[in-house]
């Protein structure tokens, strides 16, 4: 399958002599500007009538060369770039990077900073899942959840804005802790949000969980087994929905997660409906974590002693956290100078997208849209 972009200016896939119906295999081009491909993703589908025989993803439209830029920026300067990769879960990107560099510098963030970091990351996880639910339901045709989820997501973005000035790409953390002390009324805002959001999540469940058509459109769609998930390196809610009980926050706790108790929701069949249930349960667990974190917020400094100019010793470190989409890892190699020698980002969306081909085999075109939605990929992270 030669890549159509190489030199061919006009992609002529339906040559005049064979109308598309009598050739047994039809190549359909779900192009970069398609309403259902969350961002600039192009999927070339090989169809037999309505059934999908196989598909190939053409990515790279949003490639900004973040890793190349990292080699020409100092450690602190690269921090905002990290938020631009997975712009929906910017806070957890920042957390991963800051903790990786702190490990490199062998520095420990103070407990208060760790608690603040956990609160903001979990809020960001809920916001990311809300955006996923809204757009995923819209792809399958249910218009209403989109407005409910965005109304509630607005509350979280208000808290971010009050804390660090930005709503989406927050740049909330610094290497060594948090720069800003929490504004007074921060705990109260978070508690208000939790009380506000608890009935709201039941509203989503009311709308969709027992909705017959929703169940029919998602049950047994895009099934992937636990074994395939591990072989394909798929992590996050998709892996948990396939029955593998694995969450980095429990397996290799970072920040302050070992102080909180929460469960890991696990699915059984690994289809789109299970992933929907797992993500809804994850939102509830995040709320539990936030409540515990806010109640137990310790006082004390929020910034560890970190030199003005960071010059970490020569060495390399791999540190990964549980981002809303899956395992987000940073492999940083330092050569002793102020600029990192190499920053490799292990993006969950990029690896999860690889499973699209396996999940869509034998499904119908309408299901490809649903599966892309359920994988919850963000193209900024896929292309870096």
């Amino acid at each position: 399958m030669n890549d159509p972009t190489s030199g061919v200016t006009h992609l002529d896939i339906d040559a005049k002599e064979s109308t598309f119906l009598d050739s047994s295999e039809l190549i359909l081009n779900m192009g970069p500007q398609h309403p259902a491909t969350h961002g600039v993703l192009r999927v070339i589908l090989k169809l037999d009538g309505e059934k999908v025989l196989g598909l190939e993803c053409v990515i790279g439209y949003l490639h900004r060369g973040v890793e190349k830029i990292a080699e020409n920026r100092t450690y602190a300067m690269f921090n905002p770039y990290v938020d631009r990769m997975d712009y929906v879960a910017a806070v957890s990107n920042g957390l991963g990077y800051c903790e990786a560099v702190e490990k490199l510098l062998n520095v420990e963030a103070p407990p208060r900073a760790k608690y603040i970091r956990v609160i903001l990351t979990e809020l960001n996880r809920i916001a990311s899942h809300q955006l996923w639910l809204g757009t995923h339901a819209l792809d399958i045709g249910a218009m209403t959840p989109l407005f409910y989820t965005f109304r509630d997501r607005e509350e979280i973005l208000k808290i971010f804005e009050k804390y660090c000035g930005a709503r989406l790409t927050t740049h909330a953390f610094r290497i060594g802790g948090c720069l800003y002390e929490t504004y007074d009324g921060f705990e109260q805002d978070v508690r208000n949000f939790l009380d506000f959001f608890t009935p709201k999540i039941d509203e989503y469940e009311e709308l969709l969980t027992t909705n017959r058509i929703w169940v029919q459109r998602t049950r047994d769609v895009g099934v992937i087994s636990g074994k395939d998930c591990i072989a394909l390196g798929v992590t996050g809610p998709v892996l948990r929905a396939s029955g593998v009980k694995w969450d980095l926050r429990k397996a290799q706790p970072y920040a302050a997660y070992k102080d909180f108790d929460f469960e890991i929701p696990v699915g059984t069949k690994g289809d789109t409906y299970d992933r929907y249930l797992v993500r809804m349960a994850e939102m509830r667990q995040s709320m539990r974590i936030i409540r515990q974190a806010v109640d137990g917020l310790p006082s004390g400094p929020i910034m560890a002693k970190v030199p003005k100019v960071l010059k970490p010793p020569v060495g390399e470190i791999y540190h990964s956290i549980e981002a809303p989409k899956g395992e987000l890892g940073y492999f940083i190699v330092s050569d002793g100078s102020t600029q990192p020698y190499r920053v490799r980002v292990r993006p969950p969306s990029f690896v999860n997208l690889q499973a699209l081909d396996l999940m869509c085999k034998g499904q119908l075109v309408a299901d490809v849209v649903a599966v892309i939605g359920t994988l919850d990929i963000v193209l900024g992270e896929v292309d870096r």
Partner: protein
Amino acid sequence: MVGSLKRRFGSGLEALTYLGQNYLQSDAALLPELLQNLRDEEQFDYCVDITALHYPQRERPFDVIWILYSFPKNERIRVKAQYADGAAVPSAVKLWTTANWLEREVFDMFGIRFEGHPDLKRILLPDGWKGHPLRKDYGILQQDQAWVQINLGIESGQ
């Protein structure tokens, strides 16, 4: 675990740890069976990441790194090997299917060929693009002017 590996592979292998993360420095020849062994006997069933480093001044400039994780043992390990420019690295697609795209990206960014890879071609950059950006000798502002002119019809990106 390191002891058993040492007995099997002898000299070519040395285990180091840095900041609590242990990694194996192995030479190129041992690699295929080492990865196979790690996956089967040592149950490292999840290949987290495959990436590379470029040290232009060394005679074998490329460091290819496999980051593995084992679910049963909840343990992480890194395997590093040095390769000359243009040397063929054994592909890990047969061991972990996730390596397919990861190796394609390393090829796209560094120009390291993986033999045994089913469909090795660029993944992020367009096919006709000349040059591999993440190499140290590839300037930050540099671009493949020819490709830009043909396909986008503009002078140059910058």
